[in-house]
């Protein structure tokens, strides 16, 4: 299990490096999908299956799909992938940085610190992370109303930004 978690954490860092190294946005979105997928499996390894499901549905299935559609705005005849020297140089630089920073810490890493042992301390009816999220509807109702208001406000913001006809941020059309 520790080796699985090691592989997943390395996969997460490699995915973020693949986004941060400035490839064409098509490939950066692909790298972000990889990071989200691996991050979900990390969360599942710690016992948070509901939060992992929410991340997959909302983040990958909602937000990243919209990013993928907007990648049509970045269409160019020769998109740069990670084989181009400019991107590969950034990848190697970031890898060196992460390995260098990790070399400070990995002297103190031992076998037992990769996954928590006690996912189920006692017998319980309610799953830990789902039960915690249910608090959002009972005690945390105020913040739920606030975030619903913020989401409605964001819809109005987006509609106003893309209004066009010399009002808002669009000038040419």
């Amino acid at each position: 299990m520790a080796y699985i978690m090691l592989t997943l954490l390395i996969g997460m860092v490699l995915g973020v490096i693949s986004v941060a190294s400035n490839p064409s946005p098509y490939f950066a979105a692909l790298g972000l999908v990889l990071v989200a997928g691996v991050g979900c499996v990390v969360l599942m390894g710690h016992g948070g299956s509901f939060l992992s499901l929410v991340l997959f549905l909302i983040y990958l299935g909602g937000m990243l799909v919209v990013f993928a559609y907007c990648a049509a705005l970045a269409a160019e005849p020769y998109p740069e992938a990670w084989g181009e020297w400019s991107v590969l140089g950034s990848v190697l630089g970031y890898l060196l940085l992460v390995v260098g920073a990790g070399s400070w810490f990995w002297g103190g890493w031992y076998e037992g610190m990769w996954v928590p042992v006690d996912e189920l301390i006692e017998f319980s009816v309610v799953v830990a992370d789902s039960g915690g999220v249910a608090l959002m509807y009972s005690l945390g109702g105020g913040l739920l109303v606030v975030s619903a208001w913020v989401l409605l406000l964001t819809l109005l913001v987006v509609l106003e930004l893309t209004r066009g006809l010399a009002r808002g941020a669009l000038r040419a059309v």
Partner: protein
Amino acid sequence: MTPTHFTISSAFLLGMMGLAFHRTHLLSALLCLEAMMLALFIALSLWSLQLDATGCSTAPMLMLAFSACEASAGLALLVATARTHGTGHMQALNLLQC
């Protein structure tokens, strides 16, 4: 620093460096911002899972909602930039250049 803590910290910092340094396209800067938000979500979730503090699991959910708002505002700005300047490249945003 535990390996998990190191991983999510370095994911956040790498995303921030990717956002700050030389970019060609505005969309790839927005994707680095999304990578930062993802690292924060995983960090908050792991916090609540590792401390067995189930009440803290509302924090990543609300953070995801606000990060969706921010992503949509950023994409609306990208669309407005592309339709005003004709391209989404960062070089086109040079009105305030000295």
